[in-house]
């Protein structure tokens, strides 16, 4: 009986340490809860944004005038939606395999900042916040997404050899 208790204690200690985030024996790192929370936010934000892009493209959202879309914004939304979807898939794959996450994050960051600059320069004359509330919400909250990406890149624990 005594021996059994000792064994239980040993096993629980081993399992306890094994699930610890600083475990070196495992080939993956357990990410912090902050990381998981921000990463979920990034995925949710991108998913809603992509859905909105495709809904606008499919003419399923009211309140967006056709003149605005015919200035070329529709094709831009379409391509941006597809590119963002591909980048988000890459980000999730790199997070799952825990390889090159920081670099994919950096690429997504560069892409998002570039698209924000493009939109500000090319479509600032057409964009009025009250005209397109759905798109404006995402335009205005873009810095929040960029900050979240930057944050998740910093707090990510990578097992990448090159780091």
């Amino acid at each position: 009986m005594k021996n059994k208790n000792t064994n239980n204690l040993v096993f629980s200690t081993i399992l306890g340490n094994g699930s610890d985030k600083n475990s070196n024996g495992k080939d993956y790192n357990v990410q912090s809860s902050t990381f998981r929370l921000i990463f979920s936010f990034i995925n949710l934000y991108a998913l809603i944004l992509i859905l909105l892009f495709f809904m606008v493209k499919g003419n399923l959202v009211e309140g967006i005038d056709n003149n605005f879309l015919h200035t070329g914004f529709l094709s831009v939304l379409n391509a941006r939606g597809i590119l963002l979807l591909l980048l988000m898939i890459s980000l999730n794959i790199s997070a799952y395999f825990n390889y090159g996450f920081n670099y994919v994050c950096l690429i997504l960051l560069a892409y998002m900042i570039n698209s924000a600059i493009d939109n500000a320069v090319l479509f600032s004359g057409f964009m009025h916040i009250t005209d397109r509330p759905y798109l404006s919400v995402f335009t205005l909250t873009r810095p929040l997404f960029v900050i979240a990406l930057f944050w998740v890149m910093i707090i990510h624990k990578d097992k990448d050899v090159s780091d």
Partner: protein
Amino acid sequence: MFENPQLSNFFWLSMSIAYAFCFSSLYTYLTIPEYTFELNNNAQINITMKLATVRLVIVAVALLVYPMILFRFFKYAKYFTVALTAWAVAIYIDDIFVLTEVIKYPESGLITSIQSLRPILIVSLLLMSIELVFRPLTAD
């Protein structure tokens, strides 16, 4: 004060090509003759030149900052190079696939040649990124 990044000659060659391309772009866009705009005075060209100006400012800043990061803060050079590569690829994809209906570059021989040579810049930056990311750790 300054670190000595022990990089291959291939890296320096790629960096020279990238710098040469960026300086050529700056020279080309800064010396566009005014009659080009007068001949093709439409909204698309004006908006394209506005976008090109913003991009050239970013390029000029990157050209100034990059040597500083490479020699002073070498630890962050790979992240900066990857970000620049991603941006170069993003603006290339934007111009070719995303903004095709929106932007139009002025009809000038120099601008056309600079636009067609952009893949060279991307390849140079990619080679620089690969060298910095996958270089042996012992050299740090």
